[in-house]
């Protein structure tokens, strides 16, 4: 079984983002970029499936600027067999990415596509669901456990209030939640090996996809800062403040 894993290049989760002074976005120049953490989990899951003998080939794909090649090289070092970049300088929104991924699915015919549930930059949480819709495939979002069989999968999902398990027919799209697995660290020998793996580059035009953004960003601002409050010496003083000053109890 072939698995396609989509990975996104985002500002590293440890970076404290700064809004640009002109309000057009956040500062990304000279900022550490990494693979979206949820996509790392997606890739790890695929690699484990290959190690377990369920998967035969893992193709990592990414959409965006030329620098996304670095993210794909990381994916190859983690264990993807080859990689495809759909390269464009246009700002890509989830619907456009879903359309590009659909084009890649038609080209590659995987039986399973795994993606992170959301990217930590735009926090949209849409691409996997949209891809499943465009393909007419089943979807299992926010997965914390995936049990594969030949033509179906049973997926446990993280939902408000607990867990839910659904059965899905393959082919399918699965999006990952945090507890699905703990991604491995990339080792130096694997980084070296990844350099020799195939990385193909395509354009949106080659896939016949119009990636024009549907949302225009009018401005980006910093949220109102919360004022730091006061320190109180003990529990007694705290209860007094909560009762008589904040009046919340």
């Amino acid at each position, binding site marked *: 079984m072939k698995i396609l894993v989509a990975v996104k290049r985002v500002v590293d989760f440890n970076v404290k983002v700064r809004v640009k002074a002109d309000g057009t976005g956040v500062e990304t120049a000279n900022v550490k970029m990494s693979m979206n953490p949820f996509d790392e989990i997606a890739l790890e899951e695929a690699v484990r499936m290959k190690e377990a003998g369920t998967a035969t080939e893992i193709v990592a794909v990414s959409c965006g600027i030329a620098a996304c090649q670095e993210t794909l090289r990381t994916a190859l070092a983690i264990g993807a067999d080859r990689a495809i970049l759909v390269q464009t300088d246009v700002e890509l929104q989830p619907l456009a990415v879903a359309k590009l991924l659909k084009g890649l699915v038609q080209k590659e015919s995987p039986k399973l596509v795994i993606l992170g549930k959301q990217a930590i930059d735009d*926090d949209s949480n849409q691409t996997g*669901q949209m891809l*499943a819709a*465009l393909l007419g495939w089943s979807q299992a979002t926010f997965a914390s456990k995936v049990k594969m069989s030949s033509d179906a999968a049973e997926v446990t999902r993280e939902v408000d209030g*607990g*867990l839910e398990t659904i059965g899905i027919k393959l082919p399918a799209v699965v999006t990952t939640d945090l507890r699905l697995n703990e991604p491995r660290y990339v080792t130096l020998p694997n980084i070296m090996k990844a350099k020799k793996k195939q990385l193909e580059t395509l354009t949106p035009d080659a896939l016949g996809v119009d990636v024009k953004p549907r949302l225009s960003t009018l401005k980006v601002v910093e949220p109102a800062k919360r004022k730091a409050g006061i320190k109180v010496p003990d529990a*007694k003083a705290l*209860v007094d403040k909560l009762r008589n000053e904040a009046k919340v109890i």
Partner: protein
Amino acid sequence: MSLLVLAEHDNKSIRKATLNAVAAAQKIGGEIHVLVAGHQCSDAAKTAAQVAGVAKVLHSDAPQLGEELAENIAALLVSISKNYSHVLAPGTTTGKNILPRAAALADCQQISDIVAVEAPDTFVRPIYAGNALATVKSSDPIKFITVRTTAFDAVAATGGSALVEQVAAPADTGLSRFVGREVAKSERPELTSARAIVSGGRGMGSGDNFKILEPLADSLKAAMGASRAAVDAGFVPNDWQVGQTGKIVAPDLYVAVGISGAIQHLAGMKDSRVIVAINKDEEAPIFQVADYGIVGDLFQIVPQLVEELKK
């Protein structure tokens, strides 16, 4: 202009998140319809009809619509969405699962997790874990929107008398089926609607130690939450997680115990009305957002706090 709100319900009644989504629809303006889709959910449709400000309830009842399977509900949504300028859903795991699928079928770019309405086509939404707010304008004919429920005060659950209209359900797509659900049983209020929340972090040290938070939560009638660090460490289940990758909450009172205040946690609770932090590290970032902080050993302070609250 008419707007459609996808209701969240348990077949008997609608969930509160629906009332927040209706409130967002009111901010946009126009005639508001609510879709109640499910199996044997006519009671939920009746409660939806009482919601203030709702003009019409669309009730679609069929076995394949039970259990909120995204494939079938998205197919229904998109079949009726062309009658609407806006389709809204609460930004819950259910809304987030279903709405993007419907939006893609309608060839529209969804706008996720809005926190404010600037104009019928212009909305404010948090990005980068709430460290920035983007104002975005949609050029799509139908605006598919998920609503950050904590950003809109719920409309009244009663006072309305909407017409209930039956809508036929599309055929079962047969793509997925419901297997089972493990819902954490708790006498406590639900995290996202609780008036008070007591959360523990890595500083709790173990899952067992969370027990010392229980009497505190009891006396405050609070829900219990946790930081991602506590969840990752296996102390408590993931549905307790408050933060960018968990639940977004905004209670009147948020008590953070042994939580350092990572960006990703602050993203989930910084809109709480009053924040209390208890942490042994006086440099912990949580104190920068807390209204009241106590520096000290949580294992001493929490029991003292419970005693003080009894007085």
